[in-house]
């Protein structure tokens, strides 16, 4: 949740760039509700059946806390028409991209538009 706390802290910077932050995990709806309450400026998605994770193929097999499948932490920058502009993934799930790094990627990707 540290990662989401950082994104929440920087929400104004994302809004300024007209970008929304959509957070997707395979948490059940009740857990997702608690996450949404904690981070009201993020869009929290409950992908409990892993429909999105399967469609985008971001599942990390057997890497969950109890050996189940979970999401490999991955960040996509997506245009308003649904086209992917950038994919970011760290080499290890212990590391995540900070909001500052994502903002820098946003600026580099959409600066000229």
């Amino acid at each position: 949740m540290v990662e989401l706390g950082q994104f929440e802290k920087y929400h104004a910077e994302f809004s300024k760039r007209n970008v929304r932050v959509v957070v997707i995990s395979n948490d059940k709806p009740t857990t997702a509700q608690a996450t949404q309450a904690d981070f009201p400026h993020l869009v929290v998605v409950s992908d409990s059946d892993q429909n999105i994770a399967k469609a985008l193929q971001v599942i990390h097999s057997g890497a969950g806390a109890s050996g189940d499948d979970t999401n490999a932490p991955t960040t996509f920058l997506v245009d308003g028409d649904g086209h992917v502009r950038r994919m970011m993934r760290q080499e290890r799930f212990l590391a995540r991209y900070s909001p500052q790094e994502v903002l820098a990627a946003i600026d580099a990707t959409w600066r000229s538009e």
Partner: protein
Amino acid sequence: MENLQPVAPTTSTPRRQPLFLGGLLLFLAGPALYAVQISLGQLWTAWYMPLLASLGVVLMIASVRQRRSVWRGAALAFFALLCGSEWYLMLVAAKTPAYTGPAQPGSKLPPFAAMLADGTPFSNQDVEQEIRSVLVFNRGRW
């Protein structure tokens, strides 16, 4: 004339360095620093943890070589195992696979359907509504 008496030579044993304690402190410094790192909201790979653990184990080995005992040997084995598991986590278990999925730069998101936290349906069409999005996939709340 002074009455000089022979002075018995003092047998002074050299003071041992507290190597085991030093090793233990180095070992514990890793998790302590990691707690500080997380509290500061920093989520980069904490390579210093297995490095400090390794240094700690080296000091413990030196200590056991100086003074052998069952307890020291057992503690050394325990911390060496912990150190090995830290390296395993860093080098093997925590590695994420390279992304080979369909959402490559330039391509359109594939169709999907899920729910927002409030139960509202959420699909790929909701991402195609003029506003740019950052999709952050994470490992959930645990």
